[in-house]
């Protein structure tokens, strides 16, 4: 897979940035407007998937941070659990919205409001973006072996992004 033509590659290079920014926007304003961590995270992942489709797998393997994505996957999930546990530490109960109720009420309908909800959105966005990117990468990285179905199971190149 060498990727597509130079026109597609150039346009994707620009569009990727726009999609990425849109994803961040969706995540940050998730508590005020439709959207949120999941939708935004999937959009973040799709900006990288676009790169993968346009430039081919080798480019992605070389230039994009695959091990970082698998770390981010774990880190995002951990961050969300940590927000919940912080509720236990500061608010006395698991999952309490301690920021909103005690420390930082913010103003309704402003970006800084709703306490831990934007934080959770960011954590979920990170986690979803990283993990879906990883999933699609793993699925397409398997492609080489996919073309010769009867090959044995032992002489294959390892899938990147794993240990």
């Amino acid at each position, binding site marked *: 897979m060498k990727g597509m033509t130079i026109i597609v590659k150039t346009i994707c290079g620009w569009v990727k940035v726009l999609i990425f920014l849109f994803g961040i926007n969706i995540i940050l304003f998730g508590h005020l407007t*439709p959207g949120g961590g999941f939708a935004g995270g999937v959009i973040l992942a799709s900006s990288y998937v676009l790169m993968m489709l346009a430039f081919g797998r080798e480019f992605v393997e070389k230039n994009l941070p695959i091990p970082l994505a698998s770390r981010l996957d774990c880190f995002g999930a951990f961050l969300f659990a940590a927000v919940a546990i912080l509720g236990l530490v500061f608010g006395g109960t698991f999952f309490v919205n301690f920021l909103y109720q005690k420390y930082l009420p913010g103003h*309704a309908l402003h970006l800084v409001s709703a306490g831990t909800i934007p934080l959770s959105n960011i954590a979920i966005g990170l986690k979803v973006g990283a993990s879906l990117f990883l999933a699609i990468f*793993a*699925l397409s990285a*398997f492609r080489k072996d*996919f073309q010769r*179905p009867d090959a044995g199971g032992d002489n294959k190149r390892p899938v990147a992004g794993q240990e």
Partner: protein
Amino acid sequence: MLYALCFLLFMIGLYCAVVKKNLVKIVIGLAIMEYAVNLFLIMLGYRVGGTAPIIGRGDIQAGAERLTAHFINSAVDPLPQALVLTAIVISLGSLALLISICIRIYDKYGTFDITEIRRLRG
């Protein structure tokens, strides 16, 4: 009637998952079932002439920190929407896992046809 159509969609998915012999077709059937259930949940919360459960500037009474009666009496049910958001993500996750098992099976057997794959019998 709308509910029945939605249930028809569910049954089409179930038919596809149970009867078809192709691995990808089975996965497609499962996906259709999940769409139908999600749609059904959202339809349960619909209100004729309603509004989305998202508070804008116009929905807060001027001066007082209270919501207008219009919003309270017309917002659709937010709970099924929260449930469906969860269900969509769950179905995306299981789709990814199913497809990776499919690809792996294709890699081993060279076919998606379930009748050629059957080594085990239940």
